[in-house]
């Protein structure tokens, strides 16, 4: 029995895979919620605080413990930057809730024994209330994006079950991507939120392809042939995107971009399951019933 036959005959059993992925993802998100009070850890741009970026080839290994001992009651989180593919230090990103930037700057000059100037020192400060405003904006934007997307889908297909299937796939992809962020420690920020929204676009692409082929091309070939055609086209689409994003993820020297690429990558990975297992199953059942 070929893989294709196995696949088409065991679609129902194969639903177990996306169900397990969904359960694990939801579990991870709710676990985070029960321990921290939020599904995703927010970054400085959403909760207020400062991000300091220093470009230096000096060793920054002990910078976090140094800062913690120097400024006892403040929180610091430090991320080292290295040249691509090497361990050559390129700088460091420090996030903190401590607002006396000048003090931190002086302490760091002491520690690194370099002069921090406009050329090697960047700082971004976000007020707490603005962070809160940004967070609620992101949630509103996501809700709007989903509603708008759903409207477009309903107008296009004009049938309930398939439309819901497309929307479900987008939600599935997003939940998996969010759980992935949780596990990998990628924080929710304005840019990763934008990546999550972008995911809607990438996710519905393949679903629209599949739904169109199954529902609107009844004259050309039998149902299974149309499904396989869609899989061929759709996976090529997803794999080109994954290839480009992987290259981007490994090559970029911007943490912001790295995080965005990773979020979309995880969503695309999830999309392979939500489209080619769940959606195919639902649409096949729908098409057979409404013949």
């Amino acid at each position, binding site marked *: 029995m070929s893989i294709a036959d196995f696949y088409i005959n065991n679609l129902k059993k194969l639903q177990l895979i996306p169900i397990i992925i969904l359960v694990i993802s939801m579990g991870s998100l709710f676990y985070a919620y029960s321990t921290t009070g939020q599904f995703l850890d927010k970054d400085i*741009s959403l909760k207020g605080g400062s991000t300091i*970026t220093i470009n230096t080839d000096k060793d920054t290994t002990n910078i976090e413990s140094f800062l913690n001992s120097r400024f006892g009651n403040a929180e610091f989180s430090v991320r080292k930057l290295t040249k691509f593919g090497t361990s050559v230090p390129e700088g460091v990103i420090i996030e903190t809730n401590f607002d006396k930037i000048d003090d931190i700057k002086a302490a760091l000059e002491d520690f690194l024994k370099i002069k921090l100037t*406009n*050329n*090697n*020192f*960047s*700082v*971004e*400060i*976000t*007020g707490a209330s*603005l962070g809160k*405003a*940004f967070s609620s*904006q*992101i949630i*509103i*934007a996501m809700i*709007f*994006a989903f509603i*708008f*997307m759903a*409207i*477009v*889908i309903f107008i*296009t297909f004009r049938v309930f079950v398939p439309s819901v299937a497309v929307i479900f796939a987008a939600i599935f992809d997003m939940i998996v991507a969010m759980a992935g962020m949780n596990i990998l420690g990628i924080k929710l920020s*304005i*840019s990763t*939120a*934008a*990546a999550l*929204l*972008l995911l*809607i*676009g*990438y996710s519905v*692409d393949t679903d*629209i*392809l599949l739904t*169109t082929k199954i529902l609107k*091309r009844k004259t*050309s*070939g039998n149902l299974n042939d149309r499904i396989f*055609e869609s899989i*061929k*086209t759709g996976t*090529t*689409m997803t794999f*080109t*995107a994954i*290839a*480009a*994003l*992987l*290259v981007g993820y490994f*090559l970029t020297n*911007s943490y912001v*971009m790295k995080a*965005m690429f990773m979020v979309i990558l995880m969503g695309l990975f999830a999309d392979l399951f939500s489209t080619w297992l769940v959606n195919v199953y639902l649409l096949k059942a729908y098409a057979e019933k409404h013949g």
Partner: protein
Amino acid sequence: MVKIFTLRVWILVFFIAISLLAIRPNPFASGIEIKSVSANSLAADNGLKQDLKIIKVNDIDIKTIADYNNAVSYLNKKPVELSIVTDRSKLKVNVTNKIKIGFDENLTITKSEIPGLAIGDKILAINSKDIKNITDYIDLINKIIPKEKITIKTKGGEFSYLTYSQPEITVRDVKKTNIIKGLDLEGGTRVLLHPKEKDVTDLTINDLVSVLSNRLNVYGLTDLSIRSVKDLSGNKYVLVEIAGVSSDEVENLIAAQGKFEAKIANQTVFVGGKKDLPFVCRGDGSCSGIRSCNAAQGGYQCQFEFAIRLSSEAAKRHAEVTKNLQIIQSPDGRSILEKNIDFYLDDQLVDSLQIGADLKGRETTDIAISGPGSGQDQKIAQENSIKNMNKLQTILITGSLPVDIEIAKLDNISPTLGNDFVKNTFLLAIFALIAVTLVVYIRYRKSMIIIPMMITMISEILIIMGIAALIKWNIDIAAIVGIIAAVGTGVDDQIIITDEVLFGEKETVLNWKQRIKRAFAIIMTSFATVFVATIPLFWVGAGLIRGFALTTIIGISVGVFITRPAFASIVEYLVNK
């Protein structure tokens, strides 16, 4: 017979041409040009302007920023020590350019930015040479610290003048394209301001923007962008972006509402702004400067002073308020009014001055404003006083902001990050293109598909950049991600078209046109979903990722309406051949 140059391909060619014109790539451009000129500076007065390409400075060829810095470094003079003898003191000062004092015809000091030289002192000798009159003074000073000539040859002519200091300009490498880099790539300061009051009208926000930009311009910052932004819940913000400036000067200048009031006996006599103050002395040593410096608790305190002119209404108010005040004797025996004139900045008392008895009830228009500055030592105290003075002058000239504002976000970004980033992104784009091509090749194994696909991707990037250059939209990190996203969905669409055309063969009933039409049915739906899902992003984060939303939308639209039809045309041609 299927043609390759169909109307759709011509449209693509047209847009690529327009984009190239807009971007004006000029990879071989070299040299440097003027990035900004400080307002009210010698450089500005002598006609130096932004964007002029600098060819020579004093006959030295200028190719790089380092060349320029070397060429003007002779104007960085070593300090000269002057020993000054006055009727009350002897002191030594180090100066590099003109001595910042003003005096009358009797050589009695009327203004001084030099600690130790007090107003009222009379200059007797400098460097053991007796000074008898102003001519003596000028001759001697010109000998000790001569002005230097500088000649700057630019594409727009030659500029030559005498100066004590380096030209008040900033320079940059000549632009190789018309693409404007965003702040996170170029470096600089970004401030997001939020009105403290709720329910601020659009009109107020517009006023806010205009006062702020005026204020920054008066302060001497020219390379800036100020705009108002609204978010999804209707919160209003003002976003200020200034290239290449450190944040504290900006923070100081814009965070203050700048509500200035001069009060006598709790009655307001005048406020900041053109209406009450038609003239504020600024940047002129003869009517503004440091008046005195004294040791104060744990450090030094200096007083600055500058002249202003009141409008006649304000002068009338002054007369009205002082008319009924009693004349009393001050502790040092002068006749003064019983109440001081108090200067408030944003409801904080800046300074309180005695009023001479002769001003009682007079419609005086010439007044001096004063204020303090302190520091650990005299030098710092003096610098701080000058800083405070500059700020107060700026605020008095431009008036107060229409609403009180707070700094919601303050970013200071170093230019180093951006430089690496741009190089890195080029590399990334090339490798990502190769990766995509590889996957597509594995799938189709036909170069006739790959070549048009690559052409489409590259032309999409070109057209997005071209549109950005045309509408003067900054390309920042968010915008670059948007371009990547748009090109990514573009590839998806091309795969859909290719599959419909190549593998729709079972359905012989359909011709190429119908197949492409079917592909476009799918493409248009996914275009519409990405489009609507991106729209809300315009208002998220006070517009900070508007670049992402805009480039994504431009990108996918260019894809669907320009490059994709052309791609379909080309594939149709290649398949039929």
